């Protein structure tokens, strides 16, 4: 199978869908003439023209609302946020608009719209550019939230998101756009809400999603060398969550660690831990551990970034804690 970059997989998903459906367009800052702040939309203006690949002013509240209005009136917009850190000025439109109109209208208006772009940290970008909001959006009924970790998942899930008739938040990472891996050509759809077991193992389950999966994968390699076999459940979608796959894995390993990039309070890990104690209480051989972003805004210094984010050392420590193999 051919190998392409994460950004190319995203682009391929959009281009293939746009070729099939004239109602799909993309709008956002620098998506057209600049070819995308992170080159995800490179070449799309040339193929589809400025009617369907639309540069906006820096006005997230406004253009997000325009896209929602267009979705109410029969189109299927893709909105690119340069980063989800900037989506906060548009969050009223997403939460009060996109997530609510269907209910408020008694089911008259579907909302086929995708909001996509990078989430969370990407190096030493400072406090305002280093935030993971997956759990914020996942908290809201009416939305679906997708957080892929590999190029193939990115393509299959984005195609599904574009075809979905509900609003989908699709969260990527600046640090993954250059990742290369095998990606199926042409029609390749991964249904939303289905987790993927990225690594099989019998000793400890790690539930994770998005960019931070790659740190989990490295930690799992290191742990395997020490004789601890980790099973990695990549949620891929955090609204809805594929609880069944998580529970099944925990029933096999009897030990659970959850790793995510967001802050700890009211996070996806909180939710998973709640669900597992409720559904698999008697299957647990140790208290659940989690590794999240430290409970602080991100500082600039390289050592501060590393200390704040979930890192391999902390992941390994958590796995050893649930295995009672500390030290």
């Amino acid at each position: 199978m051919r190998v392409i970059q994460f950004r190319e997989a995203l682009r391929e998903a959009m281009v293939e869908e746009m070729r099939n459906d004239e109602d799909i367009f993309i709008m956002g800052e620098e998506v057209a003439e600049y070819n995308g702040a992170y080159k995800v939309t490179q070449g799309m203006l040339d193929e589809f023209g400025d009617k369907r690949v639309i540069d906006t002013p820096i006005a997230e509240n406004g253009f997000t609302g325009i896209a929602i209005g267009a979705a109410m009136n029969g189109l299927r917009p893709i909105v690119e946020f340069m980063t989800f850190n900037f989506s906060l000025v548009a969050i009223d439109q997403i939460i009060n608009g996109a997530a609510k109109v269907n209910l408020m209208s008694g089911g008259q208006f579907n909302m086929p719209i995708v909001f996509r772009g990078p989430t969370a940290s990407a190096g030493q970008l400072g406090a305002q550019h280093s935030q993971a909001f997956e759990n914020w959006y996942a908290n809201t009924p009416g939305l679906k939230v997708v957080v892929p970790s590999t190029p193939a998942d990115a393509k299959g899930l984005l195609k599904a998101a574009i075809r979905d008739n509900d609003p989908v938040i699709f969260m990527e990472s600046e640090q993954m756009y250059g990742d290369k891996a095998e990606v199926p050509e042409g029609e390749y759809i991964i249904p939303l809400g289905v987790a993927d077991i990225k690594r099989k193992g019998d000793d400890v389950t790690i539930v994770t999603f998005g960019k931070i999966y790659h740190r989990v994968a490295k930690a799992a390699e290191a742990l395997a060398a020490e004789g601890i076999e980790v099973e990695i459940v990549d949620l891929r979608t955090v609204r809805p969550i594929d609880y069944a796959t998580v529970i099944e894995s925990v029933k096999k390993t009897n030990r659970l660690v959850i790793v995510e990039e967001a802050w700890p309070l009211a996070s996806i890990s909180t939710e998973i831990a709640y669900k597992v104690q409720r559904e698999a209480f008697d299957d647990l051989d140790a208290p659940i551990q989690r590794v999240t972003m430290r409970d602080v805004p991100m500082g600039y210094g390289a050592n501060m970034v590393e200390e704040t984010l979930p890192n391999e050392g902390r992941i390994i420590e958590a796995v050893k804690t649930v295995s009672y193999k500390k030290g």
Partner: protein
Amino acid sequence: MSKDLKSKKYSKEQYLKWYEEMLLYRKFEEKASASYIQQKIRGFCHLYIGQEAIVAGYETVLGKGDSVITTYRDHCQPIGRGTDPKIIMAELFGKTSGISKGRGGSMHMFDKEKGFFGGHGIVGGHIPLGAGIAFAEKYKGTKNVNICLMGDGAVRQGAFHEALNMAMTWKLPSIFVIENNMYAMGTSVERTSNVTELFKLGHAYEMPSFAVNGMSVEDCADAFEEAVERARNGDGPTLLEIRTYRYKGHSMSDPAKYRTKEELNSYKDRDPIASVLSTINENNYASEDELKAIESKIKQTIEECVEFAEAGDFPQAGDIYDGIYAQKDYPFIKEI
């Protein structure tokens, strides 16, 4: 323009239509008010009494494919679009026979088929949606236009300015309408900005922008005719500041102590319905019996609205999961 000239521009039939429409809006709202006091209607309830000439004005020139979006003061706009007032009243009563199946309530009326896009509760939040509805019309290559109504309070929101800027840049077929009733809830226009002639805000985006007398349905219709033509011709949006007055408080729970009785009466003296009626009488457009017939027809309609609303069913509590996602089997978290 003098009143005589206007009387010549608009026909007898038009005046009678306006009279019937506006009287229906007013009587509907009076009944909504009474039903609210009886606790048949709950939650927030914002009445349109005094502002009727705006809906009657744009409905004079709008066509079937055109659309309207507004705030939470939204009972009369769908009726203007042709929604049966019975199902608006049923929505107010919270019944499944309501236009939004009892899910929306007073603030969230929607009628997709009639081109009414709601019914939105966050001040200013829906203005970009209006631009987006117009964006879709341009994208699809239709000649349809969108009327986006808002209150005077909304123009201080960033969403207003962002939407106007993009609508003008992209020449969207939008008509942005500020229903300036002079008070954002209890805060007067003067207290919220140095710019109190609100139509001037459009000048920042080089948008054709005008002030209109909202107590005159003729003036409203004239202004909309020009704006709609501009939008249909592909020449872009218009901002209309329509100076109007709400006779009641901001909502049913507002005693409106921030304004004087004299001010209220000065507007009631220029009442748009009374003004149309006097034109009808001056020109002998209808006999007393014919006018009585219109009034009793409206009375009958309002009675039917309440009967229909009363007869409907409340949603089943177990139906709370319906109509949130297009996906029929969305796996909600359901515990205890």
